[in-house]
């Protein structure tokens, strides 16, 4: 809790995310229609807005998955038009799908992602424990998990991958009360450890208490909330 940075605090460092008039397409449709947003290190920014407003696309653009059709953008110092590949390893995106392999166990899933960055066995165990998917649950194939357990496993993969910018799309969906508290604690701890987080969420009450700043996403554009 106390790890959350003061919203009034000035960050002299370079912004983590900086989009200027960004346009991105979903097929032929401009899901982002000139979005401008800046996220500083250590922030937890809440994206708020109705379905179809472009929140998911905004996150996917920041992850370097969706190219910019127009406008400019930098993430963690890399240009989104020319260096998307350099952005990706340092960003963790948790979208509507969890990116888990159903036939592998929880531990194998987390170990696979951790191994990509050379994480040790202890780190894997710590990641599992932190998201409460350790112990006997760790040996269960991912396809047999409940929705909440899958979500927690996916978050454990993010922890194991040591992502610096976390982009979370409706992370609270499908979690029970205890899971949500665990999630919030993990997110705060991640920020304390140097991560920056952007959350898209309907659950304003829950995410709002977590966020250091809230912005509205409307029809593919970003508006700051006073």
């Amino acid at each position, binding site marked *: 809790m106390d790890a959350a940075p003061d919203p009034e605090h000035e960050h002299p460092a370079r912004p983590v995310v900086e989009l200027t008039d960004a346009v991105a397409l979903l097929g032929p449709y*401009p899901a982002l229609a000139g979005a401008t947003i800046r996220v500083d290190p250590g922030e937890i920014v809440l994206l708020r807005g109705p379905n179809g407003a472009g929140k998911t696309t905004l996150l996917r653009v920041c992850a370097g998955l969706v*190219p910019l059709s127009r406008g400019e953008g930098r993430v963690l110092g890399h240009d989104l038009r020319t260096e998307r590949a350099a952005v990706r390893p340092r960003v963790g995106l948790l979208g509507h799908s969890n990116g888990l392999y159903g036939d592998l166990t929880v531990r194998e899933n987390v170990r696979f992602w951790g191994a990509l960055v050379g994480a040790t066995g202890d780190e894997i165990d710590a990641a599992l424990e932190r998201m409460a998917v350790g112990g006997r649950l760790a040996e269960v194939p991912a396809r047999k998990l409940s929705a909440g357990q899958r979500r927690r496993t996916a978050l454990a993969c993010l922890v194991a991958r040591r992502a610096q910018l976390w982009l979370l799309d409706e992370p609270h969906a499908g979690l029970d009360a205890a899971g949500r508290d665990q999630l919030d604690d993990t997110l705060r701890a991640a920020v304390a450890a140097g991560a920056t987080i952007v959350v898209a969420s309907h659950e304003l009450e829950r995410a709002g208490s977590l966020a250091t700043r809230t912005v509205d996403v*409307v*029809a593919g554009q970003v508006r700051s909330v006073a």
Partner: protein
Amino acid sequence: MTTTDLDAGTPARTSAPRGTGTRATRVLGIATVVAMAWLVAFGLGFSPADRDQEESVRILYVHVPTIWIAYLAFVVTAISSGCYLFGRKKSLGFDRVAGASAEIGVVFMAVTLIVGALWGRLTWGVFWQWDARLTTTALLFVTYIGYLAVRRLGGSHHQRAKRSAVLGLLAVLEIPLVHWSVRLWRSLHQEATVLRTDGDISMDGLMLFSLFVGVIAFTLLYVWLLLHRSRTMFLEDLIEDRGLDQALAARRAEAEEVRP
């Protein structure tokens, strides 16, 4: 059929070029029609019958140029793909030339395969021979149909360009491999069942000249088609972009309405 389409520039029509034409393409078009008329006159009229193939040799005056142009078109696709991929500017113009050329190549190859079958029926007595040339051509035909299908997958223009440029270069990798394997296949396993009729027949002067006219005519046609098709592709891209502008404006207007 061709004549009515190509001479869009006869004085009866308006003098200002319309659509994707210019004065240059119009001159080119007229030259193509004239060359085609020559080809018909020489191919069907003036040139003599061959000693072995008799009259059927006349088919070769259209058949050989179309297959050459088809291969030329695929080579142009590959070169243009390379220019897009390795060029510094990533110019979409190269991508359009690659796509237009592949399309023309596929059309020419389709014609080649059918006309080749007709010629084969006259010369060999069968429509299809499992010989190296035919088999390679058929496989390549399918390969480039796949290339055109990938071009239609969607995404932004540059996504399409990158994807299809890579595929255009891979297809060139396939050409020698397929050709080599098919030739090895035929040479080891079946005696050549035909007379020496792979087009390497000894030709007299007039026959050679007819073939020459055919090559000229179809090369002109290829260039004319390439110009028009790549310009049409440019228009398609432009109008798609314009659609994006409208969609963007609509989306922004939508945002204005929501503003409190």
